[in-house]
């Protein structure tokens, strides 16, 4: 499984430690840190020639069904307690400020529609987004600024962060619950789809979309 070349003498001098040792190393590093850590950072910390990615495969398997799990967050890895044991952790529980409905919805819109502009958030919710809502989500480090949109005015966009993924136990934003269904229903398209109509009305679509959003924005 683990390729070890019929190494030349030189290579054998720098031969990587056996895989079970590498697994131990990854285990030690992951246990030592509370923040998710990238495969690259793992490799940087481990001796020359190690393959943290492979060691992680074994390690993850080893912790299946245990009290703590090896979990992936974005392109990083970390150890988290098994969710079913949360009841034991009353002492560790952090009182999180209750998020307002506006904040929860705004967060969901950023997560499902990212990258998304403030105007788009307002379009979807049908109300203006208060400055405090965005600020709160940024302060929680759940959303951050993304690239500016290449539309007139070059508005800033928002995207979710690795902290967001970590908080909600998501490997990536693609694993958001119900994402596929939303996409399949065409509800994530930035240009809202108008109901399928007669074919000859089709070329008017862009026109009418524009007209409508103007109506709504006014």
């Amino acid at each position, binding site marked *: 499984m683990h390729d070890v070349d019929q190494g030349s003498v030189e290579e054998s001098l720098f031969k990587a430690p056996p895989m079970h040792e590498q697994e131990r190393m990854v285990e030690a590093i992951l*246990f*030592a*840190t*509370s*923040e998710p850590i990238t495969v690259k950072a793992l490799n940087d*910390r481990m001796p020359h020639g190690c393959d943290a990615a492979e060691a992680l495969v074994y390690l993850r398997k080893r912790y299946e069904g245990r009290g703590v799990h090896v979990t992936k967050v974005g392109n990083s890895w*970390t*150890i*988290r*307690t*098994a*969710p079913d*044991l*949360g009841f034991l952790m009353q002492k*560790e*529980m*952090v009182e*999180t400020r*209750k*998020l*307002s*409905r*506006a904040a*929860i*919805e705004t*967060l*969901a*819109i950023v*997560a*499902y529609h990212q990258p998304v502009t403030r105007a788009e958030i307002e379009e*979807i*919710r*049908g*109300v203006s987004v208060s400055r405090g809502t965005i600020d709160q989500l940024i302060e929680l480090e759940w959303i951050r600024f993304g690239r500016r949109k290449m539309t007139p005015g070059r508005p800033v966009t928002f995207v979710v962060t690795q902290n967001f993924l*970590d*908080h*909600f*136990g998501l490997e990536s934003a693609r694993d*958001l*619950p*119900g*994402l596929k269904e*939303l996409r399949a*229903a065409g*509800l994530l398209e930035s240009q*809202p*789809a*108008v*109901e399928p*109509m007669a074919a000859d*009305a089709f070329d*008017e679509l862009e*026109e*009418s*979309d524009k*007209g*409508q959003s103007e*109506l*709504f924005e*006014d």
Partner: protein
Amino acid sequence: MTETQSTFTESLDLADSFKVEALVVDVDGFEGPLDLLLSLSRSQKVDLLKISVLDLAQQYLAFIEKAKELRIEMAADYLVMAAWLAFLKSRLLLPSDVTDEGPSAEELAAHLAFQLERLQAIRNAAAQLMARDQKGRNFFGRGFPEKYELVRQINYTATLLDLMQGYSRVRTRDEFRPYTMDRQNVFTMEEALEKLRNLIGFTGEWTDLSSYIPREWRLDPKRRRAATAAHFAASLELAKTGFVEIRQQDPFGRIELKGKTLG
């Protein structure tokens, strides 16, 4: 979810049973006209895309009327929506005008239905998201992280040549002064020449050499000295070529210039 959410769902149940009147009481609980429309649409108990926008518009307008009767203050955007829905309602009732430009009433209605469905969908998604296991509530990170230390070790190097050069530098500091040109505070003679050539032709009067020094070079003594020297040298050059006359009435007195009249 949040408390607002739970009262919100309650109000929906009420909406179902008591219709519009029950909702009037809860007007503060709505986040904008779209939210209100979404709540009203529940009473139709159909798929949002199959909703009757006409009925919905009527419900909304009735709601606004009721609110007005009860003298409930409504934010402007609710009234804007009411006006738009009244317009849409009339368009939906009238036979469609084929020559009419822009989106048809049906397209507008479909878009409104889409918006409602999209808002509902994101709310469902938000609820699913918040129902997930969360860090600090359901699962936890390492409580006692260990320090990862970066030990920086710096190796300083120096060669024997560095050492000897360093020593000779110290011992010969008085002999050698590295010369660097202070360009910022130097007014070159070329610059002064060009300036004087252009200016002097126009005056037939004796004028003080120092009056040709630009204002920004007069304040700082160092700069003033540099500019004065350059102008003086330039004036000598011009006198040599017969372009100007120079005079000085007494020692250390003013140096005055006059353009030489040609011919």
